[in-house]
């Protein structure tokens, strides 16, 4: 992770030396799946993200962005009437830096990104026999990093995008216990560039 951040920083610095060549703003929406990779019982869940980016001058190879990400992986424990489902709602405001390997005016634009997420966590324990809602809830906030490989295909006023992201997260709650909740998310969508 530190090596990736260093590489991104070096690329950004080199990009700053060039004049800007494309539209600076991007707003994009993506949906996909978040897949836990730590083997602790969490199951894959849907995930969605909303991104706002700004391309820096010098061929716009660098972009700073802010993003809102949501996923809710769950785990089931217990048996009989005490069989419970614990859902870990994760709402993550994010800031990061993107380096376009080929400048954006190109039709095909690969990139890498990295940054920090603030995970606003809420663990909810629900039971089948309990009508109308959950039995217990527990809230918590954790910081984590991420690293993304992405690619864009220019179509119309923007581009179709596909990203694979590793989201590093450690949770520490009474309901969940202390555990590694790192996921890999695969998201796709469309971004407007203007």
């Amino acid at each position, binding site marked *: 992770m530190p090596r990736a951040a260093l590489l991104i920083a070096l690329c950004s610095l080199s990009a700053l030396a060039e004049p800007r060549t494309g539209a600076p703003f991007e707003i994009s929406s993506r949906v996909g799946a978040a897949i836990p990779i730590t083997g*602790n019982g969490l199951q894959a869940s849907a995930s969605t993200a909303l991104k706002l980016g700004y391309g820096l001058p010098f061929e716009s190879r660098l972009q700073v962005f802010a993003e809102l990400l949501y996923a809710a992986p769950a785990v089931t424990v217990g048996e009989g009437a005490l069989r419970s489902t614990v859902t870990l709602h994760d709402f993550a405001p994010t800031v990061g830096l993107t380096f376009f390997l080929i400048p954006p005016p190109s039709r095909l634009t690969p990139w890498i990104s990295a940054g920090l997420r*603030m995970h606003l966590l*809420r663990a909810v324990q629900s039971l089948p026999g309990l009508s109308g809602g959950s039995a*217990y809830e*527990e*809230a918590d*906030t954790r910081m984590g990093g991420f690293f993304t490989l992405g690619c864009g295909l220019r179509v119309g006023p923007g581009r179709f995008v596909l990203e694979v992201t590793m989201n590093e997260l450690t949770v520490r709650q009474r309901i969940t*216990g202390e555990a590694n909740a790192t996921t890999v998310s695969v998201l796709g969508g469309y971004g407007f560039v203007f």
Partner: protein
Amino acid sequence: MRWTHWVVTSMVISGCSRELTSSTAAAFTTTPTIPGCTQDPTFSLGGAALFPLVVNALGDAGLEFPSLTLQRERDEAGNVTEPIELIAHPVGSTTNQQFALDEPPPAGRYGLSVTSTEGRTARQPAALTFLPPPEILGLSQSFACRQGTSNLKLQVAHFAPGRSVSINGQPQFPQSIVACTSPPPGVVPGTCAEITVALNGQGQPSSLMRVQVGDGACASQPRTVAWLPTPSVSAITPDSVCRGSATQEIVIKGEGFLSVDGATPSVEVGHVTLATTVSDCVELTPLVRECQTLRFQLQTSALAEGSSWVTVRNPTPADCGASLPVYLTLNPSVTITSVTPTALCTGDGQLTLNGSGFSAATRAQLNGVPARHLALSNGNSTLTATFDHPVPGPGRLEVDNGPGCNTSSTINVLAGPTIELVDTQIVEATLRTRVSVVTTGVTGTPSFSLVPVGGTSATALIATPGVGPGAFDLIVPPLSNATSYDLLLSTGSGCGARAHGAVLVTGQSSGLLVPTPAGAIAGARTTVSLESTRLLQRPRVYLAPNPPSTAAALSLGAVTVLTNARLRVTLPSTIPAGNWTFMAVSTDGSTSSSPTFRVVSDAAPVISAVTPRTALASNGQRITLMGHGFRQPNVTLACANQAGVPSSPPTSVESASSTLVTFRADLVLDGGACRATVLNDDGTSVTSESFEVHAPAQELGPVRNTALAAPHRSPVTLTTEHEEALYVIGGHSFLSPLDTVESAMLDPFGAPGPFTLQPLRLQQARTRAAGATIGRFLYVVGGHDGSAPLDTVERASVLDPEDRAELESARLAPHSGGLDAGTWTYRVSVVRAPSDPINPDGEDLPSDPWPVDVPDLGPQRTAVTLSWKSEPTAAKYRVYRSQAPNAVTDTEALIAELPAGQTSLVDANRPSLTVPPRRPGALGAWQVLPTRLSVPREGPGVAWALDPLDATTAYLYVAGGRSGPNTVQDSIEVLPISLGAGGAQTPAAAFVTSATRLTEARWMFGASPASQPTSSNLPAGTTWLYLLSGLGTGGGVSSVCEASEVLPGGALGAPAPLSPLGRTSVGHLLIDNRVRVFGGTPVPSTLISRADLCGPGTSGCGAMVQAPSLSPWSTPASEVMGLARVETGVARAGAQVYVVGGAFAAPTGTLLDTTVVEYRTW
């Protein structure tokens, strides 16, 4: 709101803040509908929302429950008590509603506190109540009757409504729960003191039931209730007692006799109630024992004579009703004042006892042997006892009316004659009947008489010595008093003998017997069918002189019971001419008699020919019968249409002589066949072979099918001379030559019965042979044995029902190891000597069945001595007998094989083998003639004819045939056969080769003779052989058809060419003036080709052309077979033609052998 709070809080307290909240914490409810039990520290909280918290869900997950604490508020009585706190914990890991206390709680009411996992606490007062386990303080009864229903009341403590009541572990729904307390609301729940449950003992496996309230750890101690039975009696001993005994102990065996705390069951005899003692007991409860034996003392003076009912009733409170009644009889005491005679003869065991107390229950014994018959008379003051053959010497006579109710006397028994057996128990009152008896100890000349049972009027009988030691034949004269008679034997001095009730004389006949035919020929054996208007039961049939004379009626032995109203009897040839009456006497005493049956000395009528053999279905058809022995004849017709529906068309005789009868008949039939019966004025009759009746537009009738038992291809197919049976001989099946012979009996109109295998086979398997029926012999010529063509000839005779052994008598004698009582049936057959001209080394048909009624001789059994006529050419005799008494006819099996010199057999229950006698239609042994063909011939044409000038010589012609793969013969060989008396036939020593040859060599072809009168288009007095088309030398069809005249001496005239036929004619028939060829060769075909012998008006012949010429062959589409086939056998009997076996083509083209038999009228 929560989300907003979460987001804002999370953003503000980033990375270090956690908060646990619950929507349900400490919000619980309790539903303690039933109080808990102090012996059971578990309890449920129904509807509670006490959910556990999941912790460490992403690691080693666990649950954290809210903590429960019970605080005792009041004791069981509702008083406020010092608080006691009890800690509860959840039970198990799958529910949040089961909890357990760490220790059993004291009885009382408890509040419940719940502290949730996040630390909040809620409390519910009066949430739970614990009571001690319920107790059963008392039961309304300790017993219950198993039969019926009753109520059981339980006095209980600590029983709260809702707890269960069970019997033998099965929950019961209480009838009522009463005496309940009603504490104020909020205090300890109320309890009830009395429960009522219904009891039903039906189907309960145990004799005890366990009653409990509550269940599990909270159940009461069980209490037991005993099911009580209703007593049942299986035996009472003795079941009769004597008035003379003052006190009698009676023993009753049974079940369910109860002793309750020393009280025993009571017995009710009549209307007297008596106490009992018990034994054979087992303990049900400490107070109750169940016993199997009762004893009581009976004062006989307390009862009336006769039968009284006896019932048993158990003592209270175990009285569950009385047993079903049994009966006890009180007999009067018995005394004897006199006994006559004072000395008894061993052959006449009848004693007359005078005294008192005799009844139907009185028993008498002489030296321990019970009397065979007892009779009361003189107002029960005289008892007549009959003993079977008492042992000579001093005897002790005992008479009793039951145990202790006896008396005795001394009788001297003298040695004397005895009547051991009477062979006829039932005679008809008007007949003079011969009865055979067997006696012992007779010296001098005895006299016999019949005395009505219990009477004194004697009828003397004529007695002559019978066959065998001590045997006598008695003539029973007509007796007016139809009753049962004792048969008495007297020697004039000293002891005589008596057979008690030996002969039953029945009243006059009440049924009518109708004989068919109505007359017979003296000196000839005649089979007569008897139809009765009333049912017959194992009848004995007599032939009595009419009008009655001094001669005794003849008992007919050869009687076959066909149905219970139809008999077949065979009259022996010894019946003299005269008028007779049939009489049938059944074992039930009923009788039937016939009108006059005439036996005449005239010659038997014979029909030799019927012309025409095919008649038009129309009114007024003229038919002529030729033969001899016709005497003032009348003619009747019996017909069956194509569907087999019988009818009797009206007839009128136009003219009649002793040799010719011409009559007209209204043949309104839808095709079919008829048989004519000539009925002479003397009652004798004869029936013709069947002749065809056809509709104007009809030729061959519709096809009907049956089947062989196994496939036969290229068989020889023959019928008997008188068309009683159809034979399928040899052939091959799936390339294997056959030596088997199948046969089927034909009904009067030619319909075949089932095909069965003949017991005797050909001497040599052969196929593609040819054959002929000459008289009573079947000849099979040439053929192929699977490896080479054959030059041999075999023949067998059709067994003649006239050539049967004749049973003459069956005598009975007592024998300890003999036959059981009942009707046994015997037959005897002759095995002929090798020199016999008809059936050398072969077994004939058996005699008619001869039923023998074996009497019931008590401990003794019976031996039967059979005698039969000696046969001159017999080598052996075989004796067959039914395998069980009263078995149906035709189940006889071999019991003995005797040498020719022995014509009688004593059967003392000889073991039977499973060998049956020959059946009608059976053939004698097949014999290979010493005479051989000059060359082997496969597929020859074979026909026979009588010498035109010598009716005692027949000629068997064998034409053509194949001698090897490429050698086809055109020669014709002739075997002269001398026809002797009795159907004997003597073939010449060698075949003679005819100077006439076939125009063209061929094999697989048909040959038939034809002559007047049936083939009316031929010149009178001539016989022709028709030799038809076949296979030629090169394998192709030789279409040549020709005819040669049979000349005196057996020579054949020059062949006359006939219309050619392009098919082989192996399956052919020449009937009257028409030839038909069935099927094809080598390709299966349904076609039937036909040609007519030319004559006046024959289509296609021309005006000047006469037979033997044939019209051109035609193959009409209206005449086809049902199954396309080749190499069939074809035969005719009466109005039917038969197409038998052969092969048909499978869809693959392969030829498959078939069992199908088609038959139809021609």
